């Protein structure tokens, strides 16, 4: 199926449009709330919640015999919430650190869920067919009523986030200070975690319990690379989450038997990789370029000092020296020629015939300045004041 067909389907195919809409809302919700989880170093909490939801889904089905989404979501929500409380209880007990508690809750609940699921599937009951799509998600099973539910809950979550913005922000940055201010951070924490549970549980049908945490973590991690403002980060994570959701859901819904969760997560991971590489300032590419710039400057300074040392051995400082001499002085490091070109561009060195180079008068001043202040320091022309910025 070609891209054009997918786009056409997104607009005009009823099923696909439904799926895409649901995925967009879910991606935005999980992505935005995920920012708080990531900033609070609770990325694993999402994983524990989603895995803990599985036994709730199966039990809800066993108890009610219904496969209606609200019923299963309710079961998932209760189980996910119990899992969260279990983590908190273990950590409060003080015997185990938080990551261990998360790991235990995740595997115990998930293992129990898998046992239940296998047992239900072994029963002669045709209605259970499709419960296992909750493992990896199946967008095609999403109905318009489900999307309406997701949209309704998502709007409520967005409203709550706006209303409690400053509390959520302070809880994420400095919870002790918030409590010292007299703000009831325990309750705010419950509210924020509750929203996260809701977002995760709603996404299980589409993304599945195994990979849902990626929808919480990936958009936030990507958005963090591009901005230094919490508000922008949350909005951007919402947009990126929605993008990943729509793209992944559309791709999987158009091919038979492709689980939606992994497809969405692959798209989200792609967004993260691109962000890690390409983001300005924090991105890897920017960092490598910054490092290369510094290295170039240091190398050029070193060659300039070599030229300066050579010039001191002659009565006439403009006496040119062979490239070979400079290369030998530079420890046979490569790039001496490039450094000389840099120096020439700055007006600190001048070439003459036969690959000979001489230091200029300005170059001498610069070299003496370097000898006073140290190689590799800032020179007056390259203004990189944005870096560091420590004035004291």
């Amino acid at each position: 199926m070609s891209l054009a067909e997918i786009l056409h389907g997104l607009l005009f195919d009823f099923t696909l449009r439904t799926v895409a809409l649901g995925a967009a809302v879910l991606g935005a919700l999980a992505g935005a709330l995920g920012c708080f989880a990531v900033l609070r170093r609770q990325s694993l909490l999402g994983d524990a919640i989603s895995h803990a939801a599985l036994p709730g889904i199966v039990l809800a089905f066993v108890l009610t015999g219904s496969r209606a989404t609200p019923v299963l979501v309710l079961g998932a929500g209760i189980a996910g919430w119990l899992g969260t409380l279990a983590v908190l209880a273990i950590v409060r007990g003080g015997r185990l650190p938080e990551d261990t508690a998360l790991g235990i809750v995740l595997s115990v609940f998930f293992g129990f869920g898998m046992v239940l699921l296998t047992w239900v599937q072994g029963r002669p009951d045709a209605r259970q067919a499709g419960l296992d799509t909750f493992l990896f998600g199946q967008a095609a099973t999403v109905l318009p009523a489900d999307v309406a539910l997701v949209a309704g809950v998502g709007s409520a979550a967005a409203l709550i986030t706006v209303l409690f913005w400053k509390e959520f922000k302070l809880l994420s940055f400095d919870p002790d200070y918030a409590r010292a201010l007299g703000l009831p951070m325990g309750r705010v924490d419950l509210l924020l975690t509750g929203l996260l549970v809701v977002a995760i549980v709603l996404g299980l049908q589409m993304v599945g319990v195994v990979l849902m945490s990626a929808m919480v973590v990936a958009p936030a991690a990507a958005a963090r690379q591009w901005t230094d403002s919490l508000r922008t980060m949350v909005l951007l994570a919402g947009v990126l989450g929605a993008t990943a959701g729509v793209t992944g859901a559309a791709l999987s819904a158009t091919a038979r038997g492709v689980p939606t969760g992994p497809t969405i997560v692959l798209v989200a991971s792609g967004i993260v990789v691109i962000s890690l590489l390409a983001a300005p300032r924090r991105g890897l590419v920017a960092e490598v370029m910054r490092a290369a710039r510094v290295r170039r400057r240091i190398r050029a300074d070193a060659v300039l000092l070599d030229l300066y040392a050579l010039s001191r051995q002659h009565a006439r400082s403009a006496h040119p020296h062979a490239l070979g001499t400079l290369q030998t002085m530079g420890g046979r490091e490569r790039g001496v020629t490039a450094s000389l070109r840099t120096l020439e561009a700055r007006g600190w060195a001048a070439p003459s015939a036969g690959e000979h180079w001489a230091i200029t008068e300005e170059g001498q001043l610069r070299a003496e300045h370097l000898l006073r202040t140290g190689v590799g320091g800032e020179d007056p022309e390259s203004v990189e004041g944005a870096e560091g910025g420590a004035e004291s």
Partner: protein
Amino acid sequence: MKPEPTREGDGRRPGPGRRGPEGRGRGDASGEEIDRTSPAIEVNDLTVAYREQPVLWDVDVAFRHGALTAIVGPNGAGKTTLIQTILGLVRPAAGRIRILGQPVREGRRSVAYVPQRGSVDWDFPTSVLDVVVMGTYGRLGWFRRPGRREREAALEALAKVGMEAFAERQIRQLSGGQQQRVFLARALVQEAPIYLMDEPFQGVDARTERAIVEVLSDLRARGDTVIAVHHALQTVPEYFDDVVLLNVRRIASGPVPQVFTEENLRTCYGGRVPFLHAVAGPPGAGSPAPGAGSPVPGPGSSASSSGAAPSPRPGASARPADGSA
């Protein structure tokens, strides 16, 4: 135009009802006049334990109104825990705390907290101004967003610590001393009558140290109460009026000239075996004093002047934050 506070004069023992010129009408929680004869903060029989290990044991301390009080003691002495228990961040096993006569839940609204700067992630996506505005969150109430008034108050507080030029900076770009000044500004915005500071001078540059000292003397001039965990013993007599020597138990507390004695310091730093690493034997002392009541002659004779103040731990200020919290 701040009147230079006098160290021996009325600054030491403020009469009832005395407030600085700017002191009127501040403090959102306590509209009524503060009773200045009773202590600003009173701690009785306080015991705090992590698991079975006591961190604070049967501590009684009263913090005077309008005084700058240092809490000193070796690593693991429970200094940070004492502050955090007063703020309600740590639940005590036993004891009673009164802030301006009120229990912690109500009283802590009159307290501005300056945590250790290492307690937060400075890579958090926010600006300097945003962090300082957080000091207004307590009085804003639910659903209200900080507006122009809050931002102006924050800018004013930044100016007091010499950081107004950094308002729009990302907090990631700050040096350690600048981080400390931002936290101080955040506390100033609260306009509280009591300040609790956890090692405000820890690892800061000279400029930040000067800025903090200036803020402290401003606060004292206004009649505010400051309680600070402090590590550099040599600056205690210069910066503070009162001192609390703490090592799980309260060793001594009161005005610096009477309490900051060699004998008390030896008891505080030398007498406790589990914290022997904190003891760099004071010159002339053959072995660490075994405990309270050690026969060191001349209490009060050598301790009041800063030059002669004994400093059992010369490198105190360079040590990592104590691990008790």
